[in-house]
């Protein structure tokens, strides 16, 4: 498995992290080192093995389907980089 510059560019885009063009070759090389290490997993016979989903099988707790929280607009917005008139503000999304 070899990760080329195009794949590195695509992954950075999917992850929403800006990577400058000149940094892509080094990034691809790092990915290759890590993925090379991960390739070992191919040696393991996993036929008939179910993926692990929990440490100790247990049923998730249920609770009454009622409102337990809310009415905290000020607290929710308190850490926003840009909040206006009770909303989070972002650059224009729709033309």
């Amino acid at each position, binding site marked *: 498995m070899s*990760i080329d510059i195009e*794949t*590195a560019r695509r*992954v*950075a885009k*999917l*992850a*929403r*992290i*800006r*990577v400058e063009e000149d940094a892509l070759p080094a*990034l691809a090389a*790092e*990915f290759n*080192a*890590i*993925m090379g*290490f*991960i*390739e*070992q*997993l*191919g*040696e*393991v016979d*996993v036929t008939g*093995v*179910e*993926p*692990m*989903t*929990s*440490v*100790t099988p*247990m049923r*998730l*707790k249920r*609770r009454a389907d009622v409102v337990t929280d809310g009415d*905290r607009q000020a*607290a*929710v917005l*308190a*850490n*926003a*980089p*840009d909040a206006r008139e009770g909303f*989070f503000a*972002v*650059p*224009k*999304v729709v033309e």
Partner: protein
Amino acid sequence: MSDLNRLTIAGARDALRKGEVSAVEVTQACLAEAEGAGALGAFVHPTPELARAQAAAADARIAAGEAPDLCGIPLGIKDLFCTRGVPSQAASRILEGFKPEYESTVTAKLLGEGAVMLGKLNMDEFAMGSSNETSCYGNAVNPWKVDARALTPGGSSGGSAAAVAADLCLAATGTDTGGSIRQPAALTGIVGIKPTYGRVSRWGIVAFASSLDQAGPMTKDVRDAAIMLRAICGHDPLDSTSADIAVPDFEAALTGDIRGRTIGIPREYRMDGMPDEIEALWTRGTEMLRDAGAKVVDISLPHTKYALPAYYVIAPAEASSNLARYDGVRFGHRAALAQGDGITEMYEKTRAEGFGPEVQRRIMIGTYVLSAGFYDAYYNRARKVRALIKRDFDEAFEAGVDAILTPATPSAAFGLGEMAEADPVQMYLNDVFTVTVNLAGLPGISVPAGLDRQGLPLGLQLIGRPWDEAGLLNVAYTLERATGFVAKPQKWW
């Protein structure tokens, strides 16, 4: 009493109840020590006013009688825990300025017992690292020193380990996703326990890999670990994976009697190129447990070598999902935008500026292994290998093993900066002995067991049955008494 900052939790608890010292005095001693320890880079957001107020309240509560064990005990809190009104930024630039409007369950429980928070402690960014070198605050430094080099305290809970080892606090909180409590504890000569997955609520702890993360105590001895662990355990409706299982009195389990217990020694942990000193330490530890009356058996955990590669699929995959929330909209850093930039540019620039290189690398690896066409080949395969790793342990426990003894780390503390040129995989190998425990969800504890030739501390790890922290702590306590480890770093800072 002098050197109040050097007390253990148990020692301070007893002295506070006898009225020999006050919580205000113990807190003041820690604050003064921490203030003079800037060279260790341990405390990154000190909260002295808050600490003094909490200490005064604790003194009143102790005077009124019936105060819980941790009442008046000054603690350091890893920066990964959300603490109301106090910066909580996971050592990341992307959470610059973030002051939570809520308190994590763990810190709420500690503060509810009357514990005193001295401040927030350094760590690797988002708990991703094994040397505390990925922090946005700069390195934390190991108080142990043998030459001109500044050594790593380990990571990711490096600030917690440095603070406890240097007596800047009586104990600290840590979190452990692949070894982040046990590895730094071993490299600084302190005790660190990662509980069974689900023992401690993850609510309000900045998430890294949700199926692996657990919080735990980092303390000066095993008794303190038992005391502090009881305080933070228990079911929490706010964390659906926290277990509704009774929490025993862990301190009462410390009898020092392990006669008839079976200790497993896994042959796969004898790695190629393992330093002689680590091997010798492990052998000595085995003999000590045998001398204490335990039955020692060789066991096999055949999938051990696949634990790190499985971890480096599962942890980044979960991280890429968990860290998607850092988008510059609701909290933390937002990049300055250029004319005409839209929302995608805002996300991309914010995340490029806010995340350091190791975090970016792991997010992108996680994105890759979860992307269309690779999900089965990598992510699902890793989850199946994880099931096999857990099965290895299940079989050992079914065969009668009560606890497993291994080295905690492949080496003593290394120099800060020494791994800068190595490829990322070399750094990942630090967690080779600890990462299996997170994948299987088991409790694991690191106990200081000796000094190497240079004079640096080395630890041994004990791994327990699920939910048997009480039994595990008792074996650790027995080992601690047998090793008689009392060395402390010489103060240079």
